[in-house]
Each structure stands twice: as C-alpha cells, then as structure tokens.
C-alpha cells in the first residue's frame, strides 16, 4: 500500500512539474494545482496511513495523527486562495500584455526562450 501511495504522489508531482514548465499560463495553473495535491498527500502521509482511525476522541481506539491533518486542511484552503489569485493574475496579464505566455511574449519568441 505504501508503495502504491508513493507512486501516486510521484506521478502527481511529475505531471505537475511538467505542466509547471509549460510556457502558457493555463497549464502552469493546472500544474500548480496538481503539485498542490501531491504536496498535500505527502504532508498528510507523514502522519502514517491508518484505516478507521479518525482523530475524533471516542470514535476509534488508536486515532491517527491529527497534526498533519490540521496542517493539510489549512493548506487546502490557502492553496485555493493562492490558485484563485494566480488565475486572476493570469487573466489580468493576458488583458495587459495581449498574450497568455508566462513571460508576456506572443508566439515563437516567447516559446523559444
């Protein structure tokens, strides 16, 4: 199970990074979201993978580590805020620069760098 979990995290990371390195804003944002999932899962897994062990007192005999869960919960919400900000930044950049390239250049010149 641990191997499978790590594999998924690895695939998410790789896909996210590949998208992050694209030259257009939209794939970069999608890449950030994917990378966000990978990071959240990674952080979450530092508490160990437990089944039927919600960190609610009285519900389970040996509850899972609640601290990574709390950290990841806020990370999800913050991640949303940041994604929203980047999305709107991308829209604004396109309207200002006339291009959705991350360096604000249209066409071949922008992609060649």
């Amino acid at each position: 199970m641990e191997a499978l979990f790590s594999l998924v995290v690895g695939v998410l990371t790789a896909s996210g990074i590949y998208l992050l390195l694209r030259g257009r804003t939209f794939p970069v944002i999608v890449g950030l979201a994917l990378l966000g999932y990978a990071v959240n899962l990674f952080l979450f897994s530092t508490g160990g993978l437990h089944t039927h062990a919600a960190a609610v007192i009285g519900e389970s005999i040996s509850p899972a580590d609640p601290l990574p869960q709390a950290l990841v919960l806020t990370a999800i919400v913050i991640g949303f805020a940041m994604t929203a900000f980047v999305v709107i930044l991308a829209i604004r950049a396109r309207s200002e620069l006339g291009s959705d390239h991350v360096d604000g250049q249209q066409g071949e010149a922008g992609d060649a760098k």
Partner: protein
Amino acid sequence: MALLWIPLLTLLGALVPVFTSRYGRRACTLATLIAPLLALGLVLLHGPAVMDGEIARFSLTWMPLLGLDLALRIDGLTMLFALLILGIGSLILYYAGHYLGADEDDGRFLSYMMLFMTAMIGIAMADNLLLLWLFWELTSITSFLLIGFWGHRSDARRGARMALAVTGAGGLALLAGLLLIGQTVGSFDMSEVLAAGDLIRASDHYSLILALVLFGAFTKSAQFPFHFWLPHAMAAPTPVSAFLHSATMVKAGVFLMARFTPALGDSQLWAVSLSLVGLATMLYAAWFALLERDLKGILAFSTISHLGLITLLLGLGSPLAIVAAVFHILNHATFKAALFMSVGIIDHETGTRDIDRLGALWSMMPLTGTMTILAGAAMAGFPPFNGFLSKEMLFEQSLVNDVLGALSALIPLLVMLAATLSVAYSLRLIWSLFFAAPKLTREQKAQPPLKAHDPVRGMLAPGLFLAAMSLAVGLFPMILAAPLVNAASLAVQGDTTPLIALSLWHGLNLPLAMSLIAVAAGILVLRQQKRLAEIAALFPARDAGRIFEAAVLRVVKAALWLTQRLENGSLQRYQALLLLCALAMVAVGLANLDALTGPLGLQPVDGMLVLGAALMVFGAIGSALSHRWRLVSLLMLSVVGLTVSLTFVRFSAPDLALTQLSVEVVSMILFILALFFLPQRPPLLVSSKRILRDLLLAVSLGLVVAMLNYALLTRETISIADYFLREALPGGGGTNVVNVILVDFRGFDTLGEITVLTLAGLATFKLLNRMKLFMPAGNVEGVRWSRHRHPMILAVVAQILLPLALLVSVYIFLRGHNQPGGGFIAGLIPAVALILQYMARGYDWTRERLPVSYPVVAVSGLAIAVATGMASWLFGYPFLTSAFGHFYIPLIGEIELASAMLFDLGVYLAVVGATLMILINLGRVTTIHRPTLEER
C-alpha cells in the same frame, strides 16, 4: 566625560557649517573653527598628565554582548595624533575657507571635513578594538565623500571609488584580524590586548592575524603594492589632500602599526614584513615622485615614500627607531601639509598644476615661494629643518639593525638611495616652480605667459605657520617636540623608551656623512634630469590604478555575464533552475539513506486502493498530456481532485475529505470561468528538445519524491500527536482533535491563514479593476455559446438548494468542535450554494435580492477572530487562550460552548466572504463586457 566631549564636539561641529553657510564664507569658516579649537583645548588639558606617562580613560558600555564599549583613551600616541588632527585640521579648515570658489558649497565641504575629523579623532582615541574599527571605516566613507567632492568630474568620481574600494577592502581584513585578536585575548579592550602581546604571538593564528591587520594598515597608508589609490585621490580639492593625504588619514595605517606594536610587534615576521614593505614603498614612490609632472602627484608620491620610511622605522623596531618613527610622523605632517597648501595656492592663482608649464614664480609670489622653500627643504632633509633630524635618526638606526640577517647591510645603502631621490625631487619642485624658466610646448608658448601673485593673507598664514614650525622644531627640538615624542614613544613601547636627546648637531659621524652624500648625489641626479627621463621612458610604467580599474571592469563583466545567464527574463528558465536545485538536494538526502525500505512492515493492497490509484494516475498524466485541450485537461484535473478527497476518506481524515470536496467544487468553477477569458487552444511552438528536457526534469523529480515518500512511510516517525489527543478534551473542550488544533492549539496559525485568504480576495478587486478583456462569444470551432444564459431548471434547483445548504452549513459548523466539520468546511458550503445562485440567475438578479458586501463579510470575520483572541487579554491570559463551559439553553438543553467556537465563526465568515469575493468578482466581469468571437 571630558574625553567623550572631544569627538562629540567635532561631531556637533559638523552641523555648524550647514547652518552658518548662509551668513557668508568668512562667518561660516570662523564658526566651524570653534568646535575643533575647543576640542583641541580639551586635549591640551590632559597634556601635563599624559607627558608624565599617565593614560586618561573614559568608558561607557554600549553593546556588551558584542564586546563593543564606547571606550576612549588619551595617551602619548593619541596626544600626538590629536594635535595633528585638531591642530593642523583647524589650520586647513581656515585655509579651505579661502581656497573654495565663491560659488562652491562650503557648508557641505566643511561639514564633510568635520565628519572626517570626528572619525579620525575616534581612531586616535579608541580604547576598544571594535570601536577603533568603526571609526576606521568612517574615515573610509568620509574620505570617499571628500575625494569625490567635485562629483561632476569623472576623475574625482574614479579616485573616490578607488580609494573606497582599496581602503574598504583593507577595513574588512582589519575587522577579521581584530576579531581574531579579540578571540585570542578574550577581550576587545585595548589595554588588555596591548598587555597580551605574548599570548597573541604564541597563538596559532598569529601569522593570520598579522597578515589581516597589516593588510588593513598597508592599504590605508598606501604602502606598496596598494599605493596606487593615493595619486588618484589627488582629484580631491587641495585642502582635502593637505588634511587627509598628508597629516591624517594615510597616517591611520601607520598609527595602527604603532598602536599594535606592543601586541603584535617584536617578532621576526613583523620586522621583516614591515621593513621590506617600507623599503620597497620608500624607493618606488621616491622614483615616481621624481618623474611626475603634476604638482599634487609629486606630493602624493612623496607622501607614499615618507610613509614607507615610517613603516620601515617601525619595522626596525629598536627603541630609538620607534622614537624616530613617531618623530617623523609629526615632522612629515607639518611640512607636507604646508607643501600641499602652497601647491593649492599655486593651482588657485595660476590655474595649472603642471610643473613644466610653471616656472620663475619667485618674483611674482615671494611669500608662497618662501613657504614652499622652507617646507621643501624640510622634505629634502636639509639642516636645520625637522626633516633632517628624523632622517639622521633613520640613518643611524639603519646602520645598527639586523632584521634582514646578513642582508641588513643593504638597508643603509637603500635608505641612502631613497634619501638621494628625496633630495632630488624636493629640489626639483622648488627649482622648477620658482627659479627655472617654464618648459613650454609650442602651443603653450603662443598663449600669454602666466601671471600670478601672492594670495590673501588668510590663505598664506596657515601654510607659513607650518613651514615656520618645521624650521623651529629643527632648531629647538628639545623644547618643541621632545616631550610629545617622548610621551608618544612611551605609549608605543612602554618602559623601554630611551631617554631621548633630540638635537641638531651630533658631531661628525657616519649619519652626517650619509646625509651629505645624499644631498650631493641628489643635486647630481637633478642635473641629469633629462637623461633620467630617457631612462624612465625605457620602462613604460604600468599604472597600478589602471590594472585595478581593469580588474574591477572584468569582475563587473563576469557578474553581468552570469546574471544574464541566470536571469534572462524567462520564468521557465528560473523554474527549471530552481527545480534542478531541489532535485539535487533531495537526491543528496536520499543518497545518504542506508536503504530505501525502512523497518516498518507494509500494509496489504486491496482492490479499491488500486482503483483509486489508477484513477489518479490516469487523471494526472491525462491532464498533463492534454494541456492544450484545456477543458479536457481541467476535467482530468477534477478526477484527481475528487479521488484525493476519497483518499482522505479512506485514510481516516474526514475533515480533510470534506474540505477537499468543497474546495474542489469552488476551484472548478473558478477554472472554468478563467478558461473563458484565456485562449482556449494555444499554438504549439515548442521544440522537441525543450519537451524532452522538461520531461526528464519532471520524471526525475517525481521519482525522487516518490522514493522519499516511500522511505518516509516505511519508517517510524516521532510524533507529538499524543499531546493533542490527550489535551483536546480537557484543554480545548472538543473531541474533534483536528478542529481543536485549528481553532485552539494552533489558533494563531489559523488566524494567519484566514488573513491570507481575505487578502487574496481583496487583491482580486484591484486586479480586475478596469480590465480590458478578451471574451469569446463561442468555442474555438466557432460554435456560439447557448443563448439561454440562465436555464430555468438550474434556477429552480438552485433556489431550492440554497436554504438546504445553509441548514447543512449551520449543522456542520455547530458540530465541528466534536465531530468532523468546522468553520472552514461550513464556510465553503454556503459559498457553493450562493455561487450556484449567481450562475443560475445572473449577477444582477442575485445582487438585487442579496445586497451583501462580501469584503465586509470577510473582514468582519477576521475582526471577530482577532477580537476573540484579544478577549483573553481581559482575563489576563495570552492572546487566543480559549475558554469553554456548559450552558443550559431552553428547548435545546445543555450545550457546551467554547470561546473557540466564536473564533471558528470568524473563520467561517472569512471563508464565505473571501471565496465569494473572488468568484463573484470574476463572474461579474462577464456581465459587463460584450463578447466577441475569438480569432482562430
């Protein structure tokens, strides 16, 4: 306390010219003179005690942890330097008042001079190593300002920059050296350090300390091979040269060596380095002084040569040599300041400093001539001037030393050679300026001959006084100089100071013969000046300043090259570099691991897990591959997101699953809205090489992250979970530990979190303000969007859903402290329901019925959270301490209420407000603009 007033007075004096310059030059100069003269008086008050060998001290704790105290002292050496700095300084200030042009900013100039004076007196008085260094650096900075005073001239800027770079580098080395000394001795107190000479000499770092300190001293005192900045610094106004480059700043290096003689001296290394560097400097600079054409250049090289002489004397290190060094510091300052002043006068009156252009000035400027001849004779070392006395002492000491072993016999010969050159250049200066006819080129002959006359008395008086002093000291050394020199030597070498007898006539002895030979040879050399120039022309001199400038340029070029490689303006490049660094670091970490699989056993895999994993892998890779088909890519992304939330369900994190689910919904709406404003099918123009690079980088990073995660999962980790699980109920009053952590244990984090969320929401306002949009009226195939913007079924469903959603939201919120739920999750539910409402009915319709300002909601949420936190102050607890209690509410029964719940309410409102703020703002933009069909 009186000691503190000395630097304080000069520091305050720096303000005087700024405020008095509007009352005219004369008033300004005279007012500026008050402070240094008062300070001089204060120093002289300590005179009698210091002459008796006492040391006046003052100390104030400043930064005890660093060992930096505001500690000042006056001993003999300080007294000597203070007289030079304040005495000659005052004369030069007076001279400067006449020297500056009528339209020049005298307030600024005199103020800089006073600042420099403060820094310099600080060096002389410092009784703490770090304080000494602080003032040392201040002299570098103020001298930069002074050399570059005529900032409109490129040579002034270059000279100032060079002086700062060289002396600044020396200053840094000095700091390192002083810190090492402090570490060795265990104190930065000057007296303790000076008393710990044996300890320092025995330390392993002695040679390093010596190298660092001497590098500082040699750069400051323009010793070979760091001498090149001084001739370039001659671009400064002449009063600056007279003050900084004859009497004070360049003497700081010599001062440092003299000061540290008890602590660092008395070793073979010290003696050899000082005498060799001193000899080389003395000879090298004297030769160039003879060839130089610029009057100030001659003086600059001569200064370097004389500083080399002092360094040599300190290196010889015998008690009498040190007396001679101290004596020569005094003598050199006197005649060199006078010479600079006279050169300044000549430059001022004739408008040129070219020695060939000038000549036969005696009849026009007899007083200036007298002054130059007196001071020049002292520089040459003619009797009965003060320069003669110290030179005789040098000759005498050079004969009896043994610092270079068998080679020591060379020292008197080389010293005599330097003395010869010194006679030659001094005589050349006097002869060419006042008696010989100018050597004019043909063009210059065509111009009218130079006319000049002696300047006003105010400009002459300071220089004449100093020139007369060099004569007087030469004639009556025992009265005028001996007590001071004796006290200064006492400070340098303690009780070994010999009882000195300075006198003009020592009888017929070897030093006198050497003097006579030097004078005769000097005259001879001067007569062969033409041949000399021919010899010099055979060895084209490479100006070390040029080499330095070229080196600086090369460094700048290299820096530019590197910057352009790293920073070419491409985000992709930056990211690739950053990721590469991350890859390297993680790889190194993994390489240090013994085995990938840790001791913890693996858990079994079941079908659901495989299905989930397959879904995520499919979604992730699909999303990456289809990134140009943006809607598809987005749908793939949502597959991943939803499976992630299922993963949280499976692995016992219900709160996370709920949060992820609702965030997923909101994010997807956001992405689809964004897609509306971004190109839907971008062109593909990327080379396959680039794709390969990115793939390699992505796959390798994915691999190391997977390995890292696997390694982590199979190992036991140290957890602090027990504390939270134990304390959640008794300490936080809730059974849902995750929620208790969020609103109670780590409430401060959460407060930061919602602040960021709110700020992101507010930022979108600014970003969307007055935006010109590209809005397609259809998809890329040219199919128009549906005309039905607000479909009926959706509208009805949304309307029914809203109250239900609100109900669920309140339920989730209230149970949050004890069961999965809480402010974050509960806040996202009404946000989703309201967004649905906006989508179904449009912005205007909803706005009419729900006139709520979302920024106000978000900010009031933040305010509630902060107020809850601050409420605990009222009860004397730290910020965000929570309290809870059981209450009885009619109809509902007994309920447990925690103050953390109020905090959670703040979180709830902030989440609702911020989320809606972002989405509604973006959505609203679509209603303002009229869509157009996108170009394909």
